[in-house]
């Protein structure tokens, strides 16, 4: 059919890039990971020892678990904060209020990550402005989570906002007319219809979180170690095979979770989200 052909033509350039670049990278990483020799040359004898080491290393699994859990916690928290916030912005009557709020939400990504974490370190300190309110957050998991939610908030708010705006207001009214209270209207009509935005937000946030390096490194105090840090170390140590294997592992897990999100979203929205 015609639309099929058009679809192919439209997806082609992006996919071509993705294949040329991303697939090359994955192939490269895979080739690196399947060698024991520490060389960055394109070809080297195949050896699965590295995979064996990585897969049997308890520490790697522990870090991987931390990474994925951190990704899940941060993405869920971010969406939980972002959804109501997006709704609040959507219902703002005066354009200048909305514009201001949009800018505020955007502002964290304008600030370099090192400086931003410095700000958080200042805030969460024991003798900081909030006193002992955040005792034990800094250089522990909660501090890392808070700072990540902070910077990734815009990546969730904006897709959700765009989705909320595209829902015909009449549908919410129809639901109200049929006796659905605010909660039901939200769960059964608003949420499913805005699921594409939520999905987009949660996917972006998750992907960004599990690849984050600086924030966990600076605010984790060595207690929160994510795979990006381990990979960074391996590269500094010239252990290309280990770094590559870990990266491939992370990528596979990421793909798994990202697709899982799609499935979940489809479940919530009754089959529409993926469209």
């Amino acid at each position: 059919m015609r639309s099929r052909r058009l679809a192919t033509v439209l997806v082609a350039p992006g996919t071509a890039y993705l294949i040329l670049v991303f697939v090359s990278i994955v192939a490269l990483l895979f080739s690196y990971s399947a060698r024991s020799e520490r060389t960055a040359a394109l070809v080297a004898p195949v050896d699965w020892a590295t995979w064996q080491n990585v897969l049997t290393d308890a520490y790697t699994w522990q870090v991987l678990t931390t990474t994925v859990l951190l990704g899940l916690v941060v993405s869920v928290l971010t969406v939980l904060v972002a959804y109501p916030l997006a709704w609040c912005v959507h219902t703002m009557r005066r354009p200048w209020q909305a514009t201001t709020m949009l800018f505020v939400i955007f502002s964290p990504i304008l600030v370099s990550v090192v400086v931003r974490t410095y700000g958080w370190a200042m805030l969460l300190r024991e003798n900081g402005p909030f006193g002992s309110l955040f005792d034990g957050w800094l250089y522990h998991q909660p501090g890392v989570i808070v700072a990540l939610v902070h910077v990734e908030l815009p990546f969730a708010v904006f897709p959700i906002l765009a989705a909320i705006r595209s829902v015909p207001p009449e549908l919410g009214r129809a639901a109200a007319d049929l006796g659905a209270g605010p909660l039901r209207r939200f769960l059964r009509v608003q949420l499913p219809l805005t699921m594409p935005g939520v999905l987009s937000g949660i996917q972006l946030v998750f992907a960004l979180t599990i690849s984050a390096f600086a924030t966990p490194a600076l605010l984790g105090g060595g207690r929160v170690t994510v795979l990006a840090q381990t990979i960074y170390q391996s590269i500094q140590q010239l252990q290309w095979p280990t770094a590559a294997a870990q990266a491939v592992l992370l990528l596979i897990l990421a793909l798994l979770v990202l697709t899982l999100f799609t499935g979940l979203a489809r479940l919530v929205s009754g089959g529409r989200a993926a469209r």
Partner: protein
Amino acid sequence: MTASASSIEISGVTRRFGAATVLHGISLTIAANSFHCLLGPSGCGKTTLMHLLAGLDVPDEGTIVIGGTEHTRTPAHRRPTNLVFQSGALFPHMSVRDNVAFGLRSDGLKGPALRTRVDESLELVAMGEFAGRMPATLSGGQRQRIAIARALVKRPDVLLLDEPLSALDLALQLHMRRELKRWQQETGTTFVCVTHNQAEAMEIADEISVMRAGTIEQTGSAQELYAAPETRFVAGFIGENNIFTGPGPVIDGITFPTPAADGQVLTLRPEHLRLVEAGSDDSRGGVRVDTVGFTGRTIRAGLRTGTGRELLAELPAGTPLTPGAEVGLAFDAGHVYAVPS
């Protein structure tokens, strides 16, 4: 299958959008258990009024009392009303069955009881076999029927219908009219139905309100409105009518038996016109046949007077007519009504 019927009292309801006033202090009482139709031209405020009744919108002035309780500001989900939206407003992410079940689920209904009610409602609109389909794959008329089923299934005290049958073919319309009427009588629900179809209103309604530009011109039974329109607008709007403005007795080249009083116009229904040979005794004036249409039972002829006025005549099937012919216009004096202009 019973519901506590509710009367509706609308008093002085005004609604403005920005600078434009769409409803001008409307007052109307609708008896409990009755089938009330709202009739009026496009854009006169019918949908707006329905939304106010359903609680989807709040009037700028005035009050709305339903079943003795004031509901002016009650949110939609707490009102004993349900609305069939003019646009359908089906939930695109739910199957037909889930759309219809939505309202009942809101009330906490579950299981076989829910299923029975939903199926019953779908059968009523002859959509039983479409239960599993998504709205996007339905035709216009099918969508409209689901919208009806979705509201009906809730068995509200007051059912509001905004042009519920406009996308249906006549056979289905007739069927649905009967079903709606039957349902209304069996359950004792109060129905308020917007329609632009006068035949529908006349067939189905206990009472009809004719709206015009945000006001109600007249309320009454079909017969009352047809026989004794209080305003020229109603006269022209209920059924078809030829309206003659001017001092008389000769208007637009037609001679009338009685002249119109000041501030009045004369009306003549199309089915009361006859065509005779030009210049014959019966003829009260000459006209030219403009268009000839066939409705099955009758012939509808578009006529034009010497002054260029367009008239409509509805003649018995079989009347021989050719467009362009010059003929005479005849009618009985008793069929001429004078109404305020």
